[in-house]
C-alpha cells in the first residue's frame, strides 16, 4: 500500500510524491517489554513506562516469552512480601512528571492489551484479580475472575464493590482476548471493551475523589491450595 501526495507549486504546476505505507504496530511499540527482569522489586519497562515487579521471586513468577509478552505464573503459596499470592507488575508513573506517584484523578486513562489465561486447572481462588486500577485506599477498577468467569468490578470510596459485568460464559483458556479500558475517575467516564465489543460502561464516581491511581496487572488472588494459573499480557499499551 502507498500514500501518494499531490504537490502543487505556486504557479499551479503539479507533481506527485509516493511514500510507502507507514509502519503501524498492533497498538504497542516493538519491542514492548524492555529492560526485563523477573526478579521481585526489579524495574522493567512496558510500553516505555516503568513498572515494578512484585512476586514471590520464583524463576517462573514473571517471564518474557517474547518482546511483546509478559507471562505471570502463580502457584499456591507463592507469596509476595505482603504475604499475598501475587505476581504482578505495578506502573510507576508520576503524572504529570513533577507530581506525586500515580495519575491524578482527572486524567483520561487508556490501557489496552491482549490477555490470555493458559490452559490448566480451573480457578479455585475465592477471588482473583487480573488487572486493576489501584487507588491510594481502594481499588476503583479491576478485572476479576470469578471461578472461570470474567468480571468487571468497580468500587466506591468506601470500597464497596459493584459488578458491572459478568461474562455468562467461562473464559476460553489458551485464547487471546483484546482488552481495552478507557477511564477518567474525575470525569466519571468508563468504557471497557473486549475484542472490540463494549462489555461495561459507567458514568458514576468510582474510587475516592481526588485520589491518584496506578495500573497493575498479573495475578493477585486469595490463598489457594494446589492451584496453578498462568496469564499472558501481550502488546500492552498505556496512555498517557
Amino acid at each position: 500500500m502507498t500514500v501518494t501526495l499531490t504537490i502543487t507549486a505556486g504557479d499551479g504546476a503539479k507533481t506527485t510524491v509516493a511514500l510507502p505505507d507507514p509502519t503501524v504496530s498492533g497498538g504497542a511499540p516493538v519491542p514492548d517489554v524492555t529492560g526485563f527482569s523477573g526478579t521481585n522489586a526489579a524495574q522493567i519497562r512496558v510500553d516505555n513506562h516503568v513498572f515494578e515487579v512484585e512476586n514471590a521471586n520464583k524463576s517462573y513468577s514473571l517471564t518474557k516469552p517474547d518482546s511483546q509478552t509478559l507471562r505471570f505464573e502463580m502457584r499456591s503459596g507463592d507469596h509476595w512480601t505482603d504475604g499475598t499470592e501475587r505476581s504482578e507488575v505495578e506502573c510507576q508513573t508520576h503524572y504529570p512528571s513533577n507530581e506525586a506517584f500515580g495519575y491524578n484523578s482527572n486524567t483520561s486513562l487508556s490501557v489496552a492489551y491482549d490477555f490470555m489465561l493458559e490452559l490448566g486447572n480451573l480457578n479455585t481462588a475465592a477471588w482473583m484479580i487480573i488487572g486493576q486500577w489501584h487507588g491510594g485506599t481502594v481499588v476503583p477498577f479491576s478485572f476479576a475472575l470469578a471461578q472461570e468467569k470474567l468480571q468487571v468490578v468497580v468500587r466506591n470510596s468506601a470500597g464497596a464493590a459493584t459488578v458491572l459485568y459478568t461474562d455468562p460464559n467461562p473464559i476460553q483458556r489458551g485464547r487471546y482476548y483484546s482488552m481495552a479500558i478507557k477511564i477518567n475517575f474525575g470525569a466519571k467516564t468508563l468504557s471497557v471493551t473486549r475484542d472490540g465489543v463494549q462489555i461495561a460502561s459507567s458514568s458514576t464516581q468510582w474510587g475516592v475523589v481526588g485520589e491518584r491511581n496506578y495500573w497493575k496487572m498479573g495475578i493477585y488472588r486469595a490463598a489457594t491450595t494446589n492451584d496453578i494459573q498462568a496469564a499472558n499480557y501481550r502488546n500492552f499499551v498505556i496512555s498517557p
Partner: protein
Amino acid sequence: MTDTFNVTAAYDKPSYSQGGTITVTISGNDVLTQTVTTQQQSGVLTLTITAADGAVTTITVPAATVNVSTTTSTPQSVKITGIADTSGRAWTIAANGLSATATA
C-alpha cells in the same frame, strides 16, 4: 516554461502505534525555468578598408535583427493539495499545506 520539482516527503517517525498520529511533511520547492527570446536590431556597421597601396574605401553593413535569449529560474513554493492512501486512511492537510496528519 518548465517546472522542476525538488520536493521530498517524509514521515515524522519510523513507526507508529495503532491509534497514534502519523504526520507527513514536505520540503523543497519547484523551480520554474523560463526562457524568453527577444529580437533586437543591431546598429549599422561601417568598415574602413585599406588596400596595400594605401587606397581607402568604406563598406557599409546594414542593420540586422539579432535574437537574444534570456533564461530565468524562479523558485516556487509548494503545497500538499491532495493525498491518496490505498489503505483508506483519512488525511487532514495542514492550513499551510506543508504537512498532513492521519490516525495510525
